[in-house]
């Protein structure tokens, strides 16, 4: 080893002492933050190591949530219609179609609005009376 190398080694040794001293002077706040960073990193590593079957521990909670969602959906679909009028006996599809035609036809609606009930009742009674007498 040359003299230059020995001098270099001496310099390095001194530098190492000074650098060690600079490490010792790192303040408590910085050390605390480094400590927090280390624990965050360890948590990350632990999360990566967690086996997949550990996830099964969460199954009961997940199952309960899924069951609740399923029950809500089923109830929603089986809810009875708001107002469903019973069909009259003898009322057939053609009658229903007529009702629809009446609703769709604006003139028919005008007729409906001008409905003279007592007159038609009287005419019907007269017709029945004539039939019985005839």
């Amino acid at each position: 080893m040359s003299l230059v190398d020995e001098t270099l080694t001496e310099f390095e040794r001194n530098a190492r002492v000074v650098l060690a001293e600079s490490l010792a002077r790192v303040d408590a706040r910085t050390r605390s933050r480094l400590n927090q960073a280390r624990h965050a990193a360890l948590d990350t590593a632990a999360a990566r190591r967690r086996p997949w079957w550990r996830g099964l521990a969460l199954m009961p909670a997940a199952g309960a949530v899924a069951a609740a969602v399923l029950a809500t959906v089923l109830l929603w679909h089986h809810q009875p219609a708001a107002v469903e009028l019973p069909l009259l006996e003898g009322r057939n599809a053609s009658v229903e179609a007529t009702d629809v035609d009446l609703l769709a036809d604006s003139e028919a609606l005008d007729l409906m609005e001008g409905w003279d009930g007592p007159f038609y009742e009287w005419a019907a009674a007269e017709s029945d009376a004539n039939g019985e007498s005839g």
Partner: protein
Amino acid sequence: MPAALHGDVDLTDLTDSEAKTQSRALNQFLAGVEVKAFKIAQAGLRNEDDALDAVQDAMLQLARAYADRPEQEWKPLFYRILENRIRDMQRRRTVRGRVIAWLPFRGEDDEEEPDAIAQAPSPEPQPVKRLELDEAVGALEKALEGLPRRQQQAFLLRTLEGLDVAETAAAMGCSEGSVKTHYFRAVQSLRAQLGDLYV
């Protein structure tokens, strides 16, 4: 099997005791390097908060991606990650500096209030020896900041962290010959500046 594979090891196959052993080893490793890493980052970034961020990022990255690697690989990997992080932050800072230089109102918002506790003088008595050491530490840190980044890195990894040439080359992502060159130039430069204080 829906296991999380990474590298050569299936992490989910570790037993609890193996996981605890690995966690303990990682904790010990990080605890051993964290302050040195902070000083290296501080020398490169010249800012305490940025240095802490860089070290934290390097720790997280090591834990996330390389915790399953053999322990003897952690140190070069960690310092490689740290160096990349420091370089990224330096680049970002350079770009930011260029952008800010064009802004009409600048500078005042970046100046943080000094931490009163950190600025407070230590109640500890300082004998002559300590003052000499204070001077040596201050001079070395200042001289280190003036070195080119690669020389700074080679010197700190070899002298402060104690990595050998091969480990330093792995950490710096260069050949062993380059490490020797950077290190030699760093020592020459530091000796030229600090010779009186160190010999």
